[in-house]
């Protein structure tokens, strides 16, 4: 980085300290490039802090922390010309000592999800009771509601997911109450039970002033305007399934199965496989001319997003082979059709009905969403644990190996957004910008954490740690709460347009809560070998297919984790299977709190 005459540039660098002499710090950036940064008389330093944690100033003892192996961010002016130099205005240290990663301590992600849950509860309901009639999809940066009255199904379900996950990690029943309340609201206001076809579908949302509702059946989002997109139906289930996983509510199960039937009957392509991306709202046909560019199309969301959004969790809750077969089909389609036959590092994401690539669609054309590639690596790794296939592991490992070179910011850390799939002069260029969005950082973190946990590779763990450092250093809004939608390449929050919001069509409480939940699971059980406590609260009529509660937190490598202890309403309970992670439920008249402790069955990798 250099400056031209009369101009100035400030920039961020992520690196490991190699030496510190005379106010100069020798760094090695995460891609291995040596770089010297210059401390100044006003250089400040802080330790990485969590949401809700105070600022931790270390400006007075920088020399204590600038020791070899220390990982840090440095931000400051860069000077070019005959005497190039990079100044450190602000330093952020990952920990007190090299090798200390605070996000790997047991409370980090749990504390973070609690802060997020409090933020969204306060934003939607203030300090009063939980009443979803006042819920609004759109929230300003501080959580204030805008004048837009729309309640989108998916954003409610995403919030429900976040609250349910917060309950699972803490046992705080207030969070479960929000999740159950939101689930009931979705069933009452957003659901269409189609008895003629034997399926259930979900409204895009409602326009509500609290007294009168105006149903919005088809999507109002520009990409999917006046159609029923598969991803909206998929994300309608995200919170319902996570809540069902906890309480086994048979009413939720009926709606979940009705929606799965919708996917199988109307979205599924029995001829070429996979799932279509959109249906016509009147005929429920994926081939209707009203769909325009979405007619007879398939994409990543419609084919692959079933798994992370609800299907893995549904399989975990029920153990039902039918869901496993559906998972297998989606992943088989991904490994069969998404990899580029010409060896490009990024997968193809949009297809015609016969899997011919669609390189003309809307904003995507022949472009790669970095986060989708990482999401595929993450979820193939999960799936490979329960149904090992060479193609699953091969594609996951290939993506994990290639993405850092093409999708990561090799100087500053963090992961980019949208890139051209086809390189020009050896470079996959940015489509619009070099900014970084929160959900794509999540995909990177979970991809590399799960790979490190399942297969034990130090390079995967290093990528996970560097990604967690970037996310926690630059996406947490310490002033107003929640997580920023987008940051600039240098980590500064980007607060323009919809990306200034904390609640919108694209952001509620799913990705950031999922990150907290699964980073806890992977870090504790698979990487650090620490026990994990989870809470469930099955209803007396819980319908898990039997009277057995399944408490496995994710699709985990066989025999790596055992269920050690179980408490029912605070009392030790011994009727459980430590290997299958199942708890035999007693007959009760009231919901029962099931607190479980899982631990690693062998040394962590």
């Amino acid at each position, binding site marked *: 980085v250099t400056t031209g005459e009369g101009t100035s540039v400030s920039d961020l660098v992520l690196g490991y300290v190699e030496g510190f002499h005379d106010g100069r710090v020798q760094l090695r950036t995460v891609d291995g490039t040596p770089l010297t940064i210059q401390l100044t008389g006003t250089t400040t330093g802080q330790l990485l802090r969590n949401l809700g944690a105070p600022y931790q100033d270390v400006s007075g003892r920088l020399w204590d922390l600038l020791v070899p192996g220390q990982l840090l961010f440095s931000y400051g002016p860069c000077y070019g010309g005959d005497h190039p130099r990079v100044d450190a205005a602000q330093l952020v240290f990952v920990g007190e000592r090299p090798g200390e990663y605070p996000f790997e301590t047991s409370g980090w992600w749990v504390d973070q999800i609690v802060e997020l849950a409090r933020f969204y509860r306060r934003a939607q309901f203030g300090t009063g009771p939980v009443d979803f009639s006042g819920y609004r999809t759109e929230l300003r940066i501080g959580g204030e509601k805008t004048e837009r009255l729309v309640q989108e199904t998916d954003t409610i379900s995403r919030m429900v997911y976040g609250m349910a996950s917060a309950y699972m990690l803490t046992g705080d029943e207030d969070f479960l109450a929000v999740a159950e309340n939101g689930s009931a609201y979705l069933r*009452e206001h957003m659901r269409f039970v189609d008895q*003629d076809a034997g399926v259930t579908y979900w409204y895009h949302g409602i326009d509500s002033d609290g007294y009168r509702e*105006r149903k919005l*059946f*088809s999507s109002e989002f520009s990409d999917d305007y006046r159609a029923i997109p598969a991803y909206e139906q998929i994300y309608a289930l995200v919170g319902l399934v996570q809540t069902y996983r906890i309480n086994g509510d048979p009413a939720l199960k009926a709606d979940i199965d009705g929606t799965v039937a919708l996917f199988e009957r109307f979205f599924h392509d029995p001829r070429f496989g996979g799932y279509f991306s959109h249906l016509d*709202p009147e005929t429920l046909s994926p081939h209707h001319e009203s769909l325009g560019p979405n007619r007879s199309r398939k994409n990543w969301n419609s084919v692959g997003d079933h798994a992370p959004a609800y299907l893995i969790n549904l399989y975990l809750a029920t153990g039902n082979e039918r869901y496993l077969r559906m998972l297998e089909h989606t992943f088989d389609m991904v490994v069969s059709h998404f990899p580029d036959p010409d060896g490009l590092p990024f997968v193809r994401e949009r297809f015609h009905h016969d899997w011919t690539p669609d390189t003309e669609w809307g904003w995507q054309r022949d472009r790669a969403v970095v986060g989708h590639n990482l999401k595929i690596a993450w979820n193939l790794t999960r799936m490979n644990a329960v149904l090992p296939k060479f193609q699953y592991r091969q594609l996951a490992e290939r993506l994990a190996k290639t993405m850092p070179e093409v999708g990561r910011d090799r100087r500053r850390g963090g992961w980019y957004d949208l890139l051209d799939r086809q390189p020009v002069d050896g470079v996959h260029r940015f489509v619009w910008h070099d900014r970084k969005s929160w959900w794509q950082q999540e995909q990177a973190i979970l991809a590399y954490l799960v790979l490190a946990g399942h297969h034990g590779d130090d390079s995967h763990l290093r990528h996970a740690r560097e990604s967690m450092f970037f996310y926690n250093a630059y996406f947490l809004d310490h002033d107003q709460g929640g997580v920023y939608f987008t940051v600039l390449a240098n980590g500064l929050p980007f607060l323009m347009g919809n990306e200034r919001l904390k609640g919108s069509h694209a952001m509620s409480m799913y990705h950031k809560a999922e990150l907290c939940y699964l980073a806890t699971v992977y870090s504790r059980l698979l990487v650090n070998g620490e026990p994990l406590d989870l809470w469930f609260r099955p209803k007396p009529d819980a319908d898990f297919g039997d009277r057995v509660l399944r408490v496995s937190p994710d699709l985990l490598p066989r025999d790596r984790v055992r269920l050690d202890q179980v408490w029912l309403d605070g009392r030790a309970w011994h009727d459980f299977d430590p290997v299958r992670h199942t708890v035999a439920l007693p007959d009760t008249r009231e919901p029962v709190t099931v607190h479980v402790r899982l631990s690693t069955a062998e040394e962590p990798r």
Partner: protein
Amino acid sequence: VNLTAHLTVHNRGAEINLDGELDDASVPLLRSLLNQACAAVSDLVVLRMHGLRVISAAGIRCLITAQQATGAELDMVFLGASPEVARKLRLAGISQRDALAS
């Protein structure tokens, strides 16, 4: 087609009288009348359902799709639904809040 439907436009809005069975085969007729009604008025469309014995899911989708397309300024009221038709509407999430009137 087992549906008889009439559109009336007056100065307070439009009314569509539905008699018989609103099944999949009669959806095109309903859609045509809804399009005419929404083009003719800008404030209120009343669906009179007193004579409607059956309503299919496709019929309900036609109604709510038309309602969504009208925009927030135009109210659509469902009037006189029989218990069976009201039950199907409720399964579709449509209740008094959505202007299902008895």
